[in-house]
């Protein structure tokens, strides 16, 4: 087989398949983890009927949703109603293309990169693609021909658009420190700087994380699907696999936000505190553990935080949410960019 075809087609194809399978598996088991962790937080057991300790629960859920009747409400705008879940799901999966899960390593004389693409505008790409998801939500809410769905969709659109701005500025602060938009480049910059960026950029990290939680419509910012007011928000009328797509997309987005927090602020696949406090922390054991494990461990921590928040916080009101976004996070993130820029200028000359 000629070399270019192998390089250009076969390997990326294999990677895409592996990535999709792994991501969807993690997403499925994330729902299981959420129910289990919430269960333990709330003095109950969580799923424990299907398989040992409920391990097969996500499979059972998936099967159930697959074989459910595919319902389209009578008054719905049929085409849009069917397309909307796909519009939400596809960007959520596409973003995984640029997430670097680990260091390049050699297998049988061939260098394998555990990411699909290392493009020099990766962060811009993620910001761009992630804004597409909101179209699916607003279209889904509108096409359902249900007032609760419409309100859910509108809320969601307003929320995601407003929180994208401070989030963008928080990302800019990381970019300023790294000097590159490439995800791999940012991790390498943290290795070179001997420090994870959340230490110098703690404010940006905080803003990013709050906005990230809001972007994914999770508690305490889960207004679009506020059960108490809007039944189930924009996906009230959705059932079966179409509902599952919304649901999976939400969890995939949670993974993206967590993965980006890991890459930009927590050293990506690097073991904790590279070369910092030499002797105490640079244990050889830490370096032996593959980067992918470190990456997934850090990502799990953020995902756990998501679930933790859900078990702890009440929900903001819509106007309060907008206040927090525009009156606090937006100016704060702007100031943060100035601060970081100044710091970078002074330190790097």
């Amino acid at each position, binding site marked *: 087989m000629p070399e270019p075809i192998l390089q250009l087609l076969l390997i990326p194809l294999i990677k895409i398949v592996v990535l999709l399978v792994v991501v969807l598996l993690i997403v499925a088991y994330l729902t299981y983890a959420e129910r289990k962790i*919430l269960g333990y*937080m*709330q*003095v*109950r057991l969580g799923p424990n009927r299907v398989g040992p300790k409920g391990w097969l629960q996500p499979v059972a859920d998936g099967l159930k949703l697959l074989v459910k009747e595919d319902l389209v409400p009578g008054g719905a705008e049929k085409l849009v109603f069917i397309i909307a879940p796909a519009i939400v799901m596809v960007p959520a999966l596409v973003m995984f293309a640029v997430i670097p899960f680990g260091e390049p390593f050699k297998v049988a004389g061939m260098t394998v990169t555990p990411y699909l693409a290392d493009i020099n505008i990766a962060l811009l790409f993620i910001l761009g693609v992630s804004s597409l998801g909101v179209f699916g939500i607003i279209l889904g809410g509108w096409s359902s021909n249900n*007032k*609760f769905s419409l*309100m859910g969709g509108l809320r969601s659109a307003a929320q995601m658009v407003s929180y994208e701005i401070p989030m963008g500025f928080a990302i800019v602060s990381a970019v300023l420190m790294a000097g590159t938009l490439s995800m791999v480049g940012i991790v390498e910059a943290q290795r070179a700087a001997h420090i994870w960026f959340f230490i110098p950029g703690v404010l940006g990290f905080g803003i990013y994380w709050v906005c990230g939680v809001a972007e994914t419509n999770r*508690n*305490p910012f*889960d*207004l679009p699907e*506020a*059960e*108490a*007011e809007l*039944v189930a928000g924009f996906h009230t009328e959705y059932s079966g696999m179409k509902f599952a797509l919304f649901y999976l997309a939400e969890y995939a987005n949670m993974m993206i936000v967590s993965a980006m927090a890991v890459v930009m602020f927590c050293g990506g696949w690097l073991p904790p505190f590279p070369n910092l406090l030499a002797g105490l922390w640079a244990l050889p054991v830490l370096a032996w553990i593959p980067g992918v494990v470190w990456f997934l461990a850090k990502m799990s921590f953020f995902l756990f935080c998501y679930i933790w928040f*859900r*078990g*702890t*916080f*009440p*929900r*903001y*009101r*819509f*106007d*309060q949410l907008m206040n927090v976004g525009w009156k606090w996070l937006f100016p704060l993130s702007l100031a943060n960019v100035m601060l970081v820029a100044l710091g970078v200028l002074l330190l790097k000359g």
Partner: protein
Amino acid sequence: MMNGPERPLFDVEEMEISFGPQHPATHGVLRLQMKLDGERIVEAKPIIGYLHRGTEKLFETMTFPACIPHTDRLDYVNAAHNNQGFCITMEKLLGISIPPRAAYIRMILAELQRLASHLVWLATHAVDIGAITPFFYTFRERDEILDLFEEYCGARLTLNTMKIGGLPFELPDGWLDRCAKFVDAFPSHIDEYETLLTTNRIWKKRTVGVGIISPEDAINMGLTGPPLRGSGVEWDIRKVFPYDRYDEVEFDVPTGTNCDTYDRYLVRIEEMHQSIRILRQCLEKLPEGPIMAKAPKVLRSPEGMVYGSVESPKGELGYFIVATEKGTTPYRCRVRPPSFVNLQALPQMVKGSLVADMMAVIGTLDIVLGEIDR
């Protein structure tokens, strides 16, 4: 929104939305006809009657003791007070005074039931505002209370455990010890709920200044219970018209100052502490003796009208009974349900606020539709 003489650029139309009767947050089959301007409520009209069972009419066809199981089903999370209210009213009519032991056991059951009812309120109120975890904590303790009820009378919700003139059963062996154990453990659980909510910034943002009702309005509308006390009016039937032996125990009536949802939350939390205080005294003072007064096998009423009321967790629960000479059934029995009266404050409390506040207000009024529709 556009004000003044200029015409708005677009025609603005209010959105009419029917909320319920099948809705996850309306606590049963309450329906609200709402007019919305964006997210702001222009008008909200509660529509009731989806759970109407004609209980008051049914009473007219039943002998006095046979009415008691039907009172269970009025406010179905709060059966003991419903029983107690009916029995007290009947005892007033028949001129029966019940033995002290029966009165004390009734108070123990009633205060346990108040705790159970407040726990259901706290659980649903918190879930409506988005905090899901308190639900499971409160239901854990509520289950212990229901276990105590089950041990005493076999039922967990519809207790049917009071008789006109006293009580049907003596307490089982060891019940008092188990009750005392629960009473000792409970205050620490209240602290648990408070850790999750009382000082939580988001919880405060969602409840402080929401659903304000002034003391004057509250009195004019006939509100009772925590919605009235949250507005700073010290009014508790147990204090002002003591029944059973409430005059022999010490407790405080907590009141709020800001008339809002947060104050009503604090009032109810404090009421739980006061219930524990009453329970402690009752367990300590519980006298020996019979549990039934001497009452004829077949109750025959004198002619007359009588009103008796108890302080249920929701407010003043009253029964008004009209009886005929030597009658065995009520000629007419009217129930004054606290939820029904409290609900009428809802349109005023939510007017001009956001849809999300509606949930907080429904939660804070603590309504039960079984009692409203009867």
